[in-house]
């Protein structure tokens, strides 16, 4: 693996476990940083099947957002591709009266961020 791995503590037995841990810490830090931005309500990482793998929201909300937005993103992606097969969806931004939902997508994963734009 290149990038993102820190092998500071390399104990012979737990070596791999620790590298695993420090990488996940980076992901955690980044998500925490995003979550800490003023106005951000929640952050969800969803995999290709629409299953949330990381979230800062509660159970039911996460499941709801992940499912619905996954479907919507698929539809949006197919729309973009239908118009131009060489093209692909990269970012989706839904602005409603109360919130703004931003979906960044790449290689079938989704990063969903919900924010309150008034703040």
């Amino acid at each position: 693996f290149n990038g993102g791995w820190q092998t500071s503590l390399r104990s012979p037995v737990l070596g791999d476990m620790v590298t695993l841990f420090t990488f996940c810490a980076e992901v955690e830090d980044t998500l925490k940083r995003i979550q800490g931005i003023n106005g951000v309500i929640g952050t969800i990482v969803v995999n290709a099947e629409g299953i949330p793998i990381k979230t800062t929201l509660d159970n039911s909300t996460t499941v709801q957002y992940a499912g619905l937005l996954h479907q919507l993103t698929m539809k949006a992606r197919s729309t973009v591709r239908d118009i131009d097969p060489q093209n692909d969806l990269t970012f989706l931004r839904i602005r409603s009266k109360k919130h703004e939902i931003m979906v960044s997508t790449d290689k079938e994963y989704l990063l969903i961020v919900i924010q309150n734009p008034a703040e």
Partner: protein
Amino acid sequence: FFTCINIKQSIHQKLQAFFPPSFSTNMFVSLCFVCQAELKKEPVPLQDDSDLEKKRREADALLQSMGITPDAPVVPTHMSPTAKSAGSPSEAGSQDSGDGATGPRTLHWDCDPSTLLLHSEPGYCTLSARSPSLLLFQTSRERKEAEEEETAPPQPEVEAEKEKPAEKQDEEAPPHELTEEEKLQLLHSEEFMEFFDHSTRIMERALSEHVDVFFDYSGRDMEEKEGEMQAGAKLSLNRKFVDDRWSKQRVVTCLDWSPQYPELLVASYNNNEEAPHEPDGVALVWNMKYKKTTPEYVFHCQSAVMSAAFAKFHPNLVVGGTYSGQIVLWDNRSNRRTPVQRTPLSAAAHTHPVYCVNVVGTQNAHNLISISTDGKMCSWSLDMLSQPQDSMELLFKQSKSVAVTSMSFPLGDVNNFVVGSEDGSVYTACRHGSVTQKSYPCHLCLANMLYIKLELWNKKSCNNKPLYSFEDNSDYVYDVMWSPVHPALFACVDGLGRIDLWNLNNDTEVPTASVSVDGSPALNRLRWSQSGREIAVGDSEGQIHIYDVGIILKKKYFDLNTLVIAENSTDRPIY
């Protein structure tokens, strides 16, 4: 736990339906209790020792047949007590382990007296419905999980699990869920890394932008907002400025905001009758930016200061007009609190109180205009105050002198101005011409007539009547001023401590917002800040109150048939 068991007969009946006859309810309940105790490795109070031993052995045997040894850690999980146990129509009550979950070794029990739910982390606790000896009440999700992993021994990745407490928060997904190790795998796949790096980069940029492209100036989107926000404006007290030594017991005679530093406010005060040894005239410069409660600069002079202003193109100078007719100049670069320059007390200058001072003009060509109550208007150069550059008597119809109490120059105009006099009339005057009482195009002015009524004059009207008269006040109105930013908004203060905010677009009968100052002092002066977001109010006790003004625009606007509410310098209305 004991209490729970003893009380619920019905539970036992229900349990009977599911247990094989050989397995008594009591056995089951105690068995579970023993299991729990065993796992917690705590001493268990029991009635019967031999019974306990027997039960313990049976429990061990049962658990081992499932693949759980008493040493295997079992991870508790949060589970909804209202679980949809698809396969178990009847549920018996259970109780939360009395001492609370002490860690990964406790089977978690739900407190609901009508259900018995064995909560367990899927994959770890394999108390399965298929087992003939032990009961499983699980949600459909759990059951499926249990079915899948019934044959597999519990995974040892629970160690890794403990080290990443954050991942315990991961939620399940409706159709199927990922186990912890699957999620972990995903999280450190190269594909995910690439995606994550790219996406978070863009997301952080998008989140840091603060432009709101949706703002609606017509206020239509405000209509749907709930709460107590009404169209119009609201006033809220920001802070108070008062100085124990210099401003107490003096009346605030004038206020002015600095054009260069919007946070600076100069206030002039007249004499303090209770302190005859202190200077009669005081001017204090207050600072809004800092929380310091003392004035930025203290200036004083021998005669009561009736008007004060920041010199427009000289950020260091403060001009004051005094009761004696002298005009004084303070400089904050000098270390003196007394004026650096003074006009002479001669007939060439003023001999009556100077109520208005104003710097008009441009950077290269500007003058200080002062008008005293005897109707004399002088024009000075700030470099040389020893004699006026120009002076004239304001005479109406060439004979009657105008006792000026207030003066106002329209924006951008240096020659024509409006004065209000003691007799309650409003006059327009020209610096190089005569004084007329006729109206002047393209200007609206508010006149405070005889301290009782507010009147709105349109300089366009030919007859000498005000356009509108505001009669909502119960007391003398001491000062009035248009908002510098909102075309239809003005504020006025009265002698009973009330500040009224009028929005002509909303209502001309009643003020849009009104607030009473604490203690109801007589409010003498009012001044909008340049941003139009604050109002400074001076009272008769030497206090200055700064109010924040929040403006909410309403949907429709009011329009008098000949009145154009908003004007800019090109004479075209904004609304």
